[in-house]
């Protein structure tokens, strides 16, 4: 049975004197009736698929609308030419987020985390960390359990679907998952992991899902960048000892409430927000003209 709250995970870790990721692993073993080795094997395969997607970015590829592609390479070039305002590590994070979002839009193979539209956030946090810090792969896999456990609680209590809860449910959830994973990697305890997730989610609360022409392209690709950078800052706050004044589970519940109140035009219908701007409508009309 998946955990119904982050508080439940924390209680479980205290009761059994184990780490956050171990609580998630145990749940997976019970849920899918698999051994520890089998569970790790699948997590490693997921990590390998993420790394494969990262290393197979194609800067010349364009999405079916022709509007997305090449910006990851542009960002990479910029970071090579000068030190970005955010610093070189965050430059790499932003580059990775763009690349993965573009790969998805261009029909390349990615790992939904938790969704395809938000597939760039977690890799943007983990892959540069793994490469720059020369981190042990086993610890990265542990961090992935942390992120999966957080994502699962969000999916159970609220939603991870843009159609149901807006972009806050996709990029927001991905950001919360990445924030928890990074906090774990940097030595944060279970409570800090949950506060990092909560702060990441809080800071994207209300984000609407307004894809131009209904496609996972504009603004989805670039929102992966804010999801990843927001995760880094939330993790840093949690590691500094800053806590979410609203308990993490209540933040998730608030996300659900906000999602329920969002107008249908702002939940993946491509009818509101950026999609409804004159430029957005022009793009949609051109595309429809093209496919006819």
């Amino acid at each position, binding site marked *: 049975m998946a955990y119904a709250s982050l508080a439940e995970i924390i209680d479980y870790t205290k009761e059994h004197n184990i780490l956050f990721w171990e609580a998630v692993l145990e749940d997976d073993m019970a849920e899918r009736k698999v051994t520890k080795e089998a569970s790790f094997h699948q997590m490693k395969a997921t990590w390998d698929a993420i790394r494969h997607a990262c290393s197979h970015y194609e800067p010349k590829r364009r999405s079916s609308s022709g509007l997305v592609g090449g910006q990851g390479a542009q960002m990479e070039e910029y970071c090579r030419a000068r030190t970005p305002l955010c610093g070189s590590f965050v430059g790499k994070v932003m580059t990775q987020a763009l690349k993965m979002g573009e790969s998805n839009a261009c029909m390349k*193979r990615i790992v*939904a985390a938790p969704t395809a539209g938000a597939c760039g956030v977690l890799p943007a946090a983990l892959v540069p960390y793994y490469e720059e810090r020369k981190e042990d792969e086993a610890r990265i896999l542990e961090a992935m359990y942390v992120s999966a456990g957080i994502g699962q609680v969000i999916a159970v209590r609220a939603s991870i679907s843009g159609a149901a809860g807006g972009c806050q449910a996709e990029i927001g959830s991905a950001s919360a998952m990445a924030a928890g994973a990074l906090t774990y990697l940097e030595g944060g305890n279970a409570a800090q992991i949950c506060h990092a997730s909560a702060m990441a989610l809080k800071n994207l609360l209300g984000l609407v899902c307004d894809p131009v*022409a209904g496609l996972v392209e504009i603004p989805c690709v670039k929102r992966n960048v804010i999801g990843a950078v927001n995760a880094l800052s939330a993790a840093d706050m949690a590691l500094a000892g800053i806590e979410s004044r609203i308990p993490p589970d209540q933040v998730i519940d608030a996300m659900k409430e906000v999602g329920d109140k969002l107008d249908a035009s702002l939940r993946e219908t491509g009818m509101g927000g950026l999609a409804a701007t004159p430029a957005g409508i022009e793009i949609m009309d051109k595309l429809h003209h093209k496919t006819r």
Partner: protein
Amino acid sequence: MNIFDILGPVMVGPSSSHTAGAVRIGYIAHKLLQDELANAEIYLHGSFATTGAGHGTDRALIAGLLGMKPDDIRIPDSFQIAREQGVTFSFDTKNIKDAHPNTALLLLTGKSGRTLEVQAASIGGGRIMIQKLDGIDVNFSSEKPTLIVHNLDQPGHVAEVTSMLSHKSVNIATMQLYRDKRGGYAVMVLETDQPIPQEAIAWLAHLEGIIKVTYFNSEEEA
């Protein structure tokens, strides 16, 4: 929902519902046809019809019908691959009454002449629901071992199926019964917790009053 539904699936983008789910619909339809595909006449409804092209829904459905899974990197090239294999296909939009926004209707013909009509919906996160087979409600997810029995609507067929499963120690997770009219044509759809042995399915297929038996286990191929 397990943790690899959260970190996963590994899939070709851009959309879990419009791309990965569409591949899966094609894939399951191809399994259900039980024949090599010759022609597919495909109708898209709702959001599949309006944003399908931009999401590669059309290419995804064909990829699945050719036996590809949602993580197959050849999905964007499926039209070309279909042509190379001599498979013909057509697409159109259709307003299907009371259907889920992401619904496809597939009219399939196999190389040995078998035909099958499948109506299926992509319900989010790459998961699907097969809603109708040859116009009869079925409503199954294809995530568990699934047994579909077409039989004459006579007493005893449900007992035959359930006692066979009991004998093989197979636990039934869900069971649905449909018929077009009393004494007419009936369909049983069972999802089970354990795989069903091949010989038990063959035995079932030969019973009197049983018209057709279809079984598939998507876990087996993982």
